[in-house]
Structure formats: structure tokens, C-alpha cells
């Protein structure tokens, strides 16, 4: 009996769970389940604003818990002997400034996308809490990924993150584009997952562990060389495959091929979510693995990282110029942004410092700041696109945006702010973010990366300006356009020519005839634009948490 009891106790010896430290993640996960439960038993709640309100509130509550977690970190500082970070759940998750910041970014994304989604679903006549549920579940995967320190858990998190998004991309049942995007994303995503998993297996084979710290320690305890039990080719191949898997998720060139199609095809608010939360989470995962697991192999993987960054910056910014579809343009723009963030990942360790302190902070802080700025800008921009696309998300050709400033001045104004921010005009978050990345590159003597980043910034500015100009200046092209096409464009003509009679305007289906900007969407976009400006003028506001994040990561690497 005693023996039996002993066995049983051993079998159910689960690790201690620090519920409090996981609160934000749990709130969101439970929220997703509660939402789908309520809406399935109480049919009436399927309609109206309930699912959106619930999602936004859940994200806000989870966000509030972030603060609790952050202050809670201090309590454990002495216990763990390392400043302000904490292992939880059998060391599988790490709660530190970095985790909290990325969680914040993901929750912000859910918060804002909730607003976009509500307006979108009403317009498109869908009535589905499943959109919100899937989005929250995907976000839970992302949050897990940001904290995970075990490759198995990382893989699980990536899958939770991705599978929900595969479904979301195809949820617009009337549009074949949407279905197609989902299929493409799914098939290619599965391929990437296969790479990732195979890479994990190889790394396990080489080191006998899946925990990042153990992988890190493995090399440091075998400093003289690799043990005879393993060989470096296994480790290197594993690293390569893990990098390929993540490069797909962050859409770095040449693993970006799916991005334009999927971003274009997916429902626009979902594109916003993919471009922000999913990407931020994937970047966080990549960052963790590279800097906490594979630190000693930095000379092996850094060149690959810089090659990915350069390819993303150059290919992204130039191909963007060749586009005529605005969603596609922004897809390429997100590839360029990925290049910038990759530079920040590259620029973490700081070889020579300017001034006295640790320059590695520059890279970490640039990385996190860029994620936040990029999330705000990209959700805001895709938010405008959500409204401007019209019914069935159909009007995303550049020509469709002509004269938006006249029909929707507020929307066009916000769009201009957001696009200027993406272009990196000073006193916007986009500028500070790019500046920090380039400064970090400089501090790490990555001059070529810095120069390429500047080149990409210069070239891609043309892209953003092109959209702004199309919205504000109804120029010569319009006239040519109106002459060659008939139906739709007679209306565009009307936009340009104010003298055209109102009847004329009324009869034809103006590109913006259907554009209306519901309050939730407008509020979300306004928040994003406001945040972009505030972060641009007062980037110091997020400095404390950035400092924390940089501290915890720096101390980890010094171990």
C-alpha cells in the first residue's frame, strides 16, 4: 500500500505552478474558452458587440495583470539571486522584462484587432465569436512562445500560434482569395513546422536536452570541444533547420514567398493580427533561441541572420515599388520591417561600446521597441485598409485609394500619419525604432547592415509616399484612368472633378461609396496613430521596462 501510494505520488508529481505569474496568459486562455462557451449556449449573444467587447475587455484585464506580474518579479529577486526574472513551471517558462514586454505587445494587438474585427464582421455580415476565440487562442500561443525556454514547448507554442491563424485566414467564406490564402499558409506553414521540428530533434540528438539553458550550458561545459557522443554537424544542421522554421514565420527573404499572397488574401483585420502579434511572437521565439540557447554558436548563425536581414531589406523594399495593390505593398513593407528587426536581433551582443555601459542593451532595447512601434503602425495601417476595402474587402488596388482624403478626411489623415511613421519620419515611433536599430548596428560595428537599412528606409519611403500622394493628390493618372475605364471609374472621375454633378456621383458605385468608418475601428486606428506619435516624441515612456528586459537578458548571458 505504502509502496503503491509512493508510486502514485511520484507519478503525479507535477511541477509547482506559479499561477500569479502566468495570470495574463491564463486570463486570455480562459477568456477564449468562456467566450465560445457563452456564445454557444446563449445564441443571442452571438450578435451585437458582445464578442468584441468581451475580447477587448479580456485583453485589457490581461494587460492589467501584466503590471501585477511586473511588480511581482521584484518579490522574487533575492530568492533567485538574479535581478528581476523568474523561472516558472519547472523552468519551462521564464518571466522577465522581455516576456512582459512581448506579452504587452501581443495583448495590445488583440485589444486593437478586436476593434477592427467588430467593424469588419458587421460590415461583411458574419456573426462569429469563433473569430475572436481563435484570435485569443493564437495570442495565447504567442505569449507562450515569448516565455518558453524548452524547445518542445516552443514547438507547441508555435503550433498553437499558427494553427488558429491558418483558420482565421480562411474564415471569409465568400472570398476565394481568403480560402486560397488559408490553404497556402497552411501548406507552407506545415512545411516550416516540419523544418522546425526536425531541427529540434537534431539539436536534442546533439545535446541530449531540449531546454535552452541546458543547450547553452552544454557547450560551455564542453568548452574544449564537442563531446565524442555528438558531432557538430548535427548541432549545426539542427540550428539551420530551426532558423529556417522561424525565418518562415517572420517572413524573412527568401522564406517570405507566402507573405504577399496570404496578407492580401486574408481578411484585413486578420492580416493586421498576423503582421503584429504573430510576427512579434515569432521574433521573440527566435530571439530567445538564438541568444539564450545558441549563444556560443553566434559566429555560425550571425552571418545567416545578417544575410536574411539584408535580403529582406533589399528585396522587400524594391519589390514593394513594383506593386499596385495596397495590401500587397504593405505585405512587402512588413518584410522590410522584418529586416530591420532582424538587424536588432543581430546587434545584441555589442562588441565595442560607445561610452561606458554594455552596448548589448542597445540591441535588446531596439528589438523590443521596434516590435512595439511596428505593432502600432501596422495595426493602424491595416485598420484603415479594413475600412477602405469596402464590402467584401474588394477595393485594395492603389487606384481605389484615389481621393480618399476627400471622401474620408479623418481616415486619410490617420493613414498619412501611420504611413509617415512607417517611412520613419522623425517624431514618430517608426523613426525612433529605425534609429535605435541603426544605432545598435553601429555599436556592434555592423556598418554594412546599418547602411543597407538606411538604403531600405530611403527606398521604401517612396512606397509610403506613393500611397499618401494617391490619397491626397488626385493627379494626372486619374484622368488617364477615367478615360480608359468606364463603369467604376466614372465615379473616380467625379471625385476629381468637383464640378461633376451629384447625380453622376450618386449613380456610379464610387470606390468609397461603401466606405464607412464605424466607431470601434476608428477608435482603434486613432489609438494606434496616437500611440505612434506619443512613442515618437516621448520614447522614454517605455524605457523602464526596456531597461528591465535588457538587464535580465544581459545577466543571463553573463552566467
Amino acid at each position: 500500500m505504502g509502496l503503491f501510494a509512493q508510486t502514485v505520488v511520484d507519478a503525479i508529481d507535477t511541477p509547482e505552478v506559479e499561477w500569479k505569474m502566468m495570470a495574463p496568459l491564463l486570463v486570455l486562455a480562459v477568456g477564449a474558452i468562456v467566450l465560445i462557451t457563452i456564445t454557444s449556449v446563449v445564441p443571442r449573444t452571438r450578435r451585437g458587440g458582445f464578442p468584441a467587447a468581451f475580447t477587448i475587455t479580456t485583453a485589457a484585464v490581461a494587460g492589467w495583470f501584466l503590471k501585477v506580474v511586473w511588480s511581482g518579479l521584484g518579490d522574487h529577486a533575492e530568492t533567485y539571486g538574479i535581478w528581476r526574472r523568474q523561472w516558472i513551471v519547472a523552468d519551462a517558462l521564464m518571466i522577465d522584462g522581455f516576456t512582459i514586454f512581448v506579452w504587452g505587445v501581443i495583448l495590445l494587438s488583440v485589444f486593437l484587432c478586436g476593434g477592427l474585427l467588430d467593424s469588419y464582421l458587421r460590415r461583411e455580415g458574419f456573426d462569429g465569436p469563433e473569430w475572436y476565440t481563435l484570435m485569443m487562442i493564437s495570442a495565447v500561443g504567442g505569449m507562450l512562445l515569448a516565455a518558453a525556454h524548452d524547445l518542445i514547448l516552443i514547438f507547441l507554442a508555435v503550433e498553437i500560434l499558427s494553427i488558429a491563424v491558418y483558420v482565421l485566414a480562411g474564415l471569409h467564406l465568400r472570398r476565394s482569395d481568403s480560402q486560397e490564402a488559408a490553404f497556402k499558409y497552411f501548406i507552407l506553414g506545415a512545411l516550416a513546422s516540419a523544418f522546425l521540428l526536425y531541427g529540434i530533434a537534431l539539436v536534442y540528438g546533439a545535446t541530449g536536452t531540449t531546454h535552452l539553458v541546458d543547450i547553452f550550458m552544454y557547450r560551455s561545459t564542453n568548452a574544449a570541444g564537442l563531446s565524442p557522443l555528438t558531432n557538430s554537424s548535427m548541432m549545426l544542421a539542427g540550428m539551420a533547420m530551426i532558423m529556417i522554421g522561424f525565418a518562415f514565420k517572420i517572413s524573412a527573404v527568401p522564406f517570405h514567398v507566402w507573405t504577399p499572397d496570404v496578407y492580401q488574401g486574408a481578411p484585413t483585420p486578420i492580416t493586421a493580427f498576423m503582421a503584429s502579434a504573430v510576427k512579434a511572437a515569432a521574433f521573440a521565439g527566435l530571439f530567445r533561441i538564438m541568444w539564450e540557447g545558441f549563444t556560443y554558436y553566434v559566429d555560425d548563425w550571425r552571418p545567416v541572420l545578417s544575410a536574411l536581414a539584408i535580403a529582406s531589406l533589399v528585396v522587400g523594399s524594391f519589390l514593394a515599388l513594383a506593386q499596385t495593390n495596397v495590401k500587397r505593398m504593405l505585405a512587402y513593407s512588413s518584410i522590410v520591417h522584418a529586416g530591420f528587426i532582424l538587424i536588432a536581433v543581430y546587434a545584441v551582443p555589442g562588441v565595442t561600446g560607445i561610452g561606458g555601459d554594455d552596448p548589448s542593451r542597445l540591441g535588446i532595447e531596439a528589438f523590443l521597441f521596434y516590435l512595439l512601434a511596428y505593432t502600432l503602425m501596422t495595426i493602424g495601417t491595416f485598420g484603415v485598409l479594413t475600412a477602405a476595402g469596402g464590402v467584401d474587402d474588394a477595393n485594395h488596388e492603389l487606384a481605389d485609394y484615389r481621393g480618399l482624403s476627400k471622401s474620408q478626411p479623418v481616415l486619410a489623415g490617420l493613414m498619412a500619419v501611420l504611413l509617415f511613421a512607417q517611412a520613419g519620419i522623425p517624431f514618430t515611433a517608426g523613426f525612433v525604432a529605425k534609429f535605435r536599430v541603426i544605432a545598435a548596428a553601429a555599436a556592434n560595428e555592423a556598418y554594412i547592415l546599418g547602411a543597407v537599412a538606411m538604403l531600405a528606409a530611403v527606398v521604401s519611403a517612396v512606397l509610403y509616399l506613393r500611397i499618401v500622394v494617391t490619397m491626397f493628390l488626385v493627379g494626372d493618372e486619374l484622368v488617364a484612368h477615367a478615360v480608359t475605364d468606364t463603369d467604376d471609374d466614372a465615379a473616380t472621375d467625379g471625385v476629381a472633378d468637383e464640378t461633376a454633378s451629384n447625380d453622376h456621383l450618386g449613380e456610379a458605385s464610387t470606390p468609397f461609396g461603401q466606405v464607412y468608418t464605424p466607431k470601434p475601428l476608428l477608435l482603434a486606428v486613432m489609438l494606434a496613430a496616437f500611440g505612434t506619435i506619443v512613442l515618437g516624441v516621448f520614447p522614454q515612456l517605455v524605457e523602464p521596462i526596456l531597461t528591465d528586459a535588457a538587464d535580465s537578458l544581459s545577466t543571463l548571458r553573463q552566467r
Partner: protein
Amino acid sequence: MEQVLDAAWLIPASPLLGFVLLVLFGRKMGEPFAGILATLASLGAFIASVVMFFGLRSLPAAERFHIQTLFEWISSGSFSVDAGLLVDPLSITMCLFITGVGTLIHLYSIGYMHGDENFSKFFIYLNLFITSMLLLVLGDNLLLTFLGWEGVGACSYLLISFWFTDEGNASAGKKAFVTNRVGDFGFMLASFLVFVSIGSINYDDIVAHAGDISSNTATLIVVLFLLAATGKSAQLPLFVWLPDAMAGPTPVSALIHAATMVTSGVFLLTRLNPLLAAADVWTSGLIAWVGAITALFAATIAVAQNDIKKVLAYSTISQLGYLFLAVGVGGYVAAIFHMITHAFFKALLFLGSGSVIHGLHDEQDMRRMGGLQKLMPVTAFTFIIGWLAIAGVPPFAGFWSKDEILLYAWNADGIGGKGLWVIGLITALLTAFYMTRQVILTFWGRTRFFDATSEEIDLAWDARLAGVGADVATAQEAREKVLAGVDKAHDDVAKKTDALAKAEEKLTEASAALAASTEADDGHDKLVKAFDKATKAVPKAEEAITKAEDKVTAAVAAVADADDAIKVAHGRGSELESERALAPKPPEYVTARTEAVDVSDLDDAMPASYRDRQEYHPHESPLTMTLPLIVLAGLAVVAGGLNLPFTSDLHFLGHWLEPSLFGNEAHLTSPSSTKWALAVIAITVGLVAIAAAFAVYLRGRRDPATIEARTLAHGWFVDESYANFFGGPGRRFFDLLAWFDRSVVDGGVKGVATSATGVGRLFQLLQPGFVRSYGAMLTLGSVVTMAWFLGRMFL
């Protein structure tokens, strides 16, 4: 007084406030209040600048370098960037003339933009521009300067395209944007290098540590900043956008593309004079030679332009070249001095040309001006002062500043021998020549405004010929008609012939029947009657045929008449053609003596544009426009007093700017006798050029065609060759990118989108061309990545 300098933020804040108010309420305010508000906002900045000026004056020279930190902007570890303003003699000098000239141009715009539907929008842009420009010159670090740099570029872009219904304007705006991007990249790279070298981008750190930068790095930095400056200040090879920028409203040309923004490249190089001093000496030479060659090159083009604003545009490029030349040879004070005087007289000339254009119903071709002195006395008088100033006639402002640059060029043996000086002198000669040409063609001689243009004459001839053509057509129509008559008549003859045949047949039948029967037979009488009838019918039919044949003859005669009529009409046509070929045409090259083409013969055929113009009365512009002209003309007369060469005490500007130059100003070695000799040479050259222009354009002593070559008129075809590149090989590159995206990346989308059902779509995904292209991409990337990692094993 130090505290006063802390109010420097008021300088950019004033136009910024104006901008915000106009964005919020501009449309409601409407005309002219929006313009008045904008003018007051600019005036506020001017007053603040004046206060700052006296604040600085009250300090000892060594302390005239005041940094006002507004707030900490970006800080990360040891690295931080503050948003701060640098108040020193250089920045305040810039502020004074930017806001001063800016205010006048705001005032002028109230009149110029009168009646424009986007009146308030125009002033929104103008105030935003002033704000950006002030940030550019006041920023205490490269980043803030860059913010201003981008801001003025954006405003310039928006204002060039202001009348965006015009295709040319929109594309000119684009050209300005793209060209300046090249320069901006240079700016960013250079700032990056500065940051890497000294760990800061604040000007005070740059001043303090410029000496520590290795000479090679400093050289690279300066070259990159030079690239940025050539873009903004329209120097070779990035000058192509400026002439096109003249498509914007004229006050914009005056403010942005003559007086302020385009000088920011020179300002930047002056501000960074410690870096220039640290760089290899050849960079200074490069700057000087870029400037000198641009100056000469643009001046030659200006000689052959007929558009009143294009002359001034190329003149501006040329004068900016002078400024670069001055910076290159270390004459910073001379550069700033000429920048100020140039701002006065070039703004004056531009505004004057705007007044002319305004008064002449949007006419910009100088060949169709002339004699406007009588019609627009104030504009003419002030324009002439501007001309004397730019042509280097003492004692007008341009003489003093230009002379100073030439003096420094003479002095710069190290980088160019006397070559720079010679080029400067030739440029001065050309400048005097083309400006005299402009004044003569615009204000003196006969008023050619009412003359018929060759297009109008062509149209009139076309109308005439069209009349003859109509005659031919009528005659031809008539001929067709009578020709139809001939056919009809022929038909008639045929018919009648048929009838005769029938009658004869009947007669034969009747006679046969008669012969067969006898009198005894029944019906014999009947047969006899029939025979008689038939016998009578035959001559009747014969008669009818004769008649019909007469008709045919008549119809043929009518056709011949019609043919004659056509011939006559044709003859008139060819007569007119030859007449047209012989008729006098307005000449391509015009002087004050050019006679009008007599078009009295064509009067009735002249197009509406011509007839409308005869009704139009060229007029002087309103006071809001002429007042700025008068003020600027006054400044163009006296501004030379800022820095007189006679004694050291009179070098007001030189002493004032000293604290900003850190002893990097070149030292003149020539004795004062050289100074005098050079001045005399310059004056002589200027007067010779003016005399030559008088001889050609006023007296008609020589055919202008020999001077205004086609190459020059087309700006040496530089623009075309750029366009050919971007339209040809450059365009192809983008086409290739677009093709790649379309066929490889997009192909799948299209293929899938056309298929019908979900299942079909699934299979479609497996179609070659789709998965293959994506899969190939992914596999290729993976293989390269793997290869790299595995390759590391052996390294």
C-alpha cells in the same frame, strides 16, 4: 541676456502655431484671413529672430554659442539625442533672412494666390515649410537638421505639385522627390559615420571632436554630406529637378527654390566647417569645382531659355554653384554673404517675374513680353534693381558679395590654381549677359504680347485651308449628283431603245399576220388597225430615244462643269498653301527689334486665344504684391553694406559670423592692390557683358540664333539623358522586378482564383508553376542555409 536666448523655441513655434491654426480653421477663415494669419505667424518668427539677434549681440563673441535643450528625446544607455536648438550667429543669420524674406513672400502670396480654390491650403504648406526650414537651421544636432531637411523637401514636393490637376506639375514633384532621395541617403550615411566616429551627432560634440576623426573618415563624411548638399541645392549632377520645380506657384519658386531651401546644402557645409577642416584638402577642392562647374554650366543654359522663370531657375543653380565655390575655397563668410544678398535679389526677381506672369494672364514666354516698363512700372523698376544687383554692378548688393567670392577663388591656389577664378569670372560675364537679355526682352522694346504666335498663325491658316477644303467638298458633292444624272439618262436611253425594239417586233408580227390573212377572213380589219398602230409606234419610240440622248449630252456637260469647279477650288487651295509657305512667321529668336507678323489678312481666321488677348489689358499687380517687391528692391540696393571690403571694421558680417566658424575661414594672402585689380576686372567684365547683350537684343547687331544654341536651350540634354536612362535600362530593372512578382509570385494567385470550388482549388495548388515556384524558393533558401551551416564544420 542668456535667458533671452532660451526663448529661441519661439522662432519655429510661431509658424508652427500658424500651421496648426490653419489646419484647424484655415478653410473657415478663407481668403484673405488665412493668408494674413500665415503672414503674421511668419512675422512673429522674424521678430523672435531679431530679439535673438540682439540677445546674441549682447554677449561676448566667445559665448555666442548657446544650446537650448528642449527635451530629452531618445536615450538608451550612454547614448542619447536631445531635441535642442543651437543659437549662434550662423543660425540666427539664417533665421533672420528666412523669416524676413519669408514674411514678404507670404504677403505677396496673398495677392498672387487670390481666387485660388485652395487658398488656405497653400498657406498651410507655406507655414509648415517655414517651420521646417527654421528647424533645419536651428537644430543642435544632425538629426533635428535632418528632420527639417526632410520637412522642407516634403513641403517643396507638395508645393510643386500644388496645382496638381496639371500633369507636368505632378511629375515635376515626383522628380524633385526622387532626386532628393539620393541626396538624403548621403545625409543619413554621413550622420551614421559621424555617430560611429565620435559617438554623438550634436554639433557641439562635432565641433569639439572633429579633429579626432581620422582624415579618411572625415573625408568620406564630407563627401557624403556633399552628396546630400548637391541634391538639396541642385548642383551637378543632381540639379535636374530644380528647373522643373518652376511648375509650382511663383511665390514658392521665390521662397523655396531660390531664397531658402536650396541654400540649405550650403548652410550644412558651413555648419560642418570643422569637419571640412578635418577632411583631406581635396574634398574642399571637390566642393569648389562642383560649384564652379555647376555655376558655369547653368549660366550657359540660362542664356538660351525663353521661359522667364526658367532663366531664373538656371540662374539660381548657377548662383548656388557660386556659393559652393565659396565654401570650397574656405570663404564661408563670402558664401553666407552672397547667400543673403542672393536671397534678396533672387526673391525679388522671382516675385517680379510672378508679377509679370500675373499681369500677363499667365504668359511665361519672354518672346511675347517686351515693353512692360510702361504697363507695369513698379515691377519693372524693382526688377531692374534686381538685375543690376545680380549682374554685379556696383554699388548694388550682388557686386560686393560676388566680388568677395571671386577674391577667395583667386586666393585658392592650393586647389585650383587660378582656374576657379577664371570660371567664376566667365560665369559672372554670362550672368550679366543673360540677365540683361531678360530685362530687355521683358521690359523694353515693343510690347509683343499682342502679336500673333506661330501656333496661332498656323491655326488661322489651317482654318483658311479648311474653308477651301469645304468648297472642294461642295463641288465634289455637286459632281456626284450630276454624275448620278448621267447614269439615269443612260438608263433612260437603254429603256427607250428596248421600247423601240419591242415596237419593231410588234410591227413585224403585225405585218406577218396581215400578210397571212386575207380580206375575207374575219378580223382582217382588226389586223389592219394593229398594223397601223405598230407602224406609228416605231417613229415615236425613235423620237423618244433622241430626246433621251440629248439629256445624256446635257448631263455629261454638267459633269464637266463640276469638274472645272473642283479644279478651281483645288487651285485656290494650293494657292493658299504657297501663300502660307511664303507668309512671314514669328521668329524663333527674338530681340527688342523683332517686328510683329502682319496678320490682317488672316484676321477673320485667327483663333479665339488671339482675339481674346487683344481685349486683355496687361496691368500692374496689386499692392500686396508690389510692396514686397519694393522692400526687397531696397534690400538689394543696400545689403552690400553688410560686409564692405574697404577696411576690416566694415566686415560686419565677417566679425559677426566668426564664432560659428572656429577659425576655419581661409586667410587671404593677396595684397590689397590685387583686391582692387580684381574688382576692376569684375566690373569691366560685367559691363562688357551688359553692353554685348544691349548690342544683340536691343540694337539687333547680331542674330541671337548664333548665341542661343539648341544644346543650351535643352540644357545640354542632360535631363533627356537621365530620362532615357530611367525610361530605358533603369525602367527595365523595375519592369523585371514587376515581372518576377507577377509571373512567379502572382501566377499562383491568379491560377487559384479562377478555379471554382474548394476541392478544385486544392488540386490547383498542386499545379505546376505555383507550388513549384514557392517550393523552389523555400528549398533554395533552405539549401543555402544548410550549406552554410554545414560548411562551418570545415572552417
